[in-house]
């Protein structure tokens, strides 16, 4: 990479139209990225989502190119996060070749680990054989699992294989029981990060943008002092804060989708080419204190 392109990449992730959100003891605040940049804390992890490798329609004929540009930006950051999470829709059509291409591209990311949960596009074959052959090991092929890193408890959930009749995502009874067990007995002072593909709270029910057991999941999380719930699926940033819980959806690296209820359905949104980079991007979680976790969204613009 040349000096100029590195500088451009840094500009992308560092000074983009980002807003930094901090959550501390339930107090929520937002301030401008440009002011916060200098004393930003240690990058904890990075969230990438909805890479949709295999998509080739008008909304973005070059999803490989935009993923590569995203990875270049990540690799050019002054400090790398310890690991990355991918919140699903790695591929567009669950094809073996799409998974292989995605793996090849993602392996270029300068992070030590990649944690992946499936999106509904990754398991269109039903049992998700292609997905689990590649990403099932961490969970014994269940898809959901937890791990601890840097004092934070991370929980990966699968809500795309057990749809409710109303079209919302669902965990199913076994996974919900597992989640209850996994969180039981943990200190309420340990920060918790939960991630899944579809939003774990209801954003827009007519388009299935939510999870049927959302309230049960939230009730298991309320006693913790710092909870961050991360999702993809809707290809745009939507967030809300409820008590100590910050809910946040990430952008896609492939194509945008319309805002809730705009148009016939949640399909790819065609925008003028000049606007596309500003609608694609990743989310970075940084830590600026013992318990403070902040999210920064950056775009390719």
């Amino acid at each position, binding site marked *: 990479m040349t000096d100029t392109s590195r500088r451009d990449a840094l500009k992308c992730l560092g000074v983009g139209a980002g807003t930094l959100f901090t959550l501390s003891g339930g107090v929520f605040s937002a301030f401008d990225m440009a002011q916060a940049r200098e004393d930003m804390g240690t990058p904890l992890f990075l969230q990438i989502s909805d890479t949709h490798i295999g998509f080739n329609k008008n909304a973005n004929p070059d999803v490989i190119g935009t993923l590569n540009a995203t990875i270049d930006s990540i690799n050019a950051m002054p400090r790398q996060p310890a690991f990355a999470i991918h919140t699903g829709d790695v591929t*567009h*059509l669950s094809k073996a070749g799409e998974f292989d291409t995605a793996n090849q591209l993602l392996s270029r990311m300068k992070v030590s680990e990649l944690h992946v949960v499936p999106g*509904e596009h990754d398991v*269109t074959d039903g049992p998700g054989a292609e997905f689990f052959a590649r990403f099932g090991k961490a969970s014994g092929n269940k898809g959901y699992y937890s791990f601890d890193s840097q004092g934070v408890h991370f929980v990966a959930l699968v809500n795309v294989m057990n749809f409710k009749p109303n*079209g919302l995502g669902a965990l199913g009874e076994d996974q919900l029981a597992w989640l209850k067990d996994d969180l039981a007995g943990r200190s309420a002072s340990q920060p918790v990060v939960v991630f899944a593909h579809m939003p774990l709270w209801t954003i827009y029910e007519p388009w299935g943008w939510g999870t049927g057991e959302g309230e049960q999941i939230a009730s298991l999380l309320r006693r913790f002092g710092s909870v961050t719930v991360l999702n993809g699926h809707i290809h745009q940033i939507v967030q809300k804060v409820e008590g100590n819980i910050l809910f946040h959806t990430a952008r896609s690296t492939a194509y945008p989708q319309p805002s809730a209820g705009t148009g*016939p359905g949640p*399909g*790819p949104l065609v925008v003028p080419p000049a606007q596309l980079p500003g609608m694609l991007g990743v989310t970075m979680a940084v830590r600026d204190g013992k318990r403070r976790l902040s999210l920064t969204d950056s775009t390719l613009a």
Partner: protein
Amino acid sequence: MKSNFFGVALLLASAAGLHPANAADVAVNIKNFDYSPMDLNIAAGTTVVWKNLDGEPHTIASIDGQFRSQALDQDDSFRFTFDHPGVYKYICSIHPKMKATITVK
């Protein structure tokens, strides 16, 4: 080189999952996140051909598992022949709000 062009065309048609339509086949189009028609009545032995016209992929997945398509990209098709009378409900497994019914008599 005429025959070569013809060969390529056939190959493309087959790669896209398209087959020459029989006059007796019944079409269901998928557009704007809906199956059209949503309620279909056919005689036993009829083949239904679904075609996805959306930029977003869709599937045809029978509720009780009797038939299930791969994810259909834009302009891809899926066909299934209904040999036995009954009421067949199906959904899109990617967008399960999309529901439809086929009644075979």
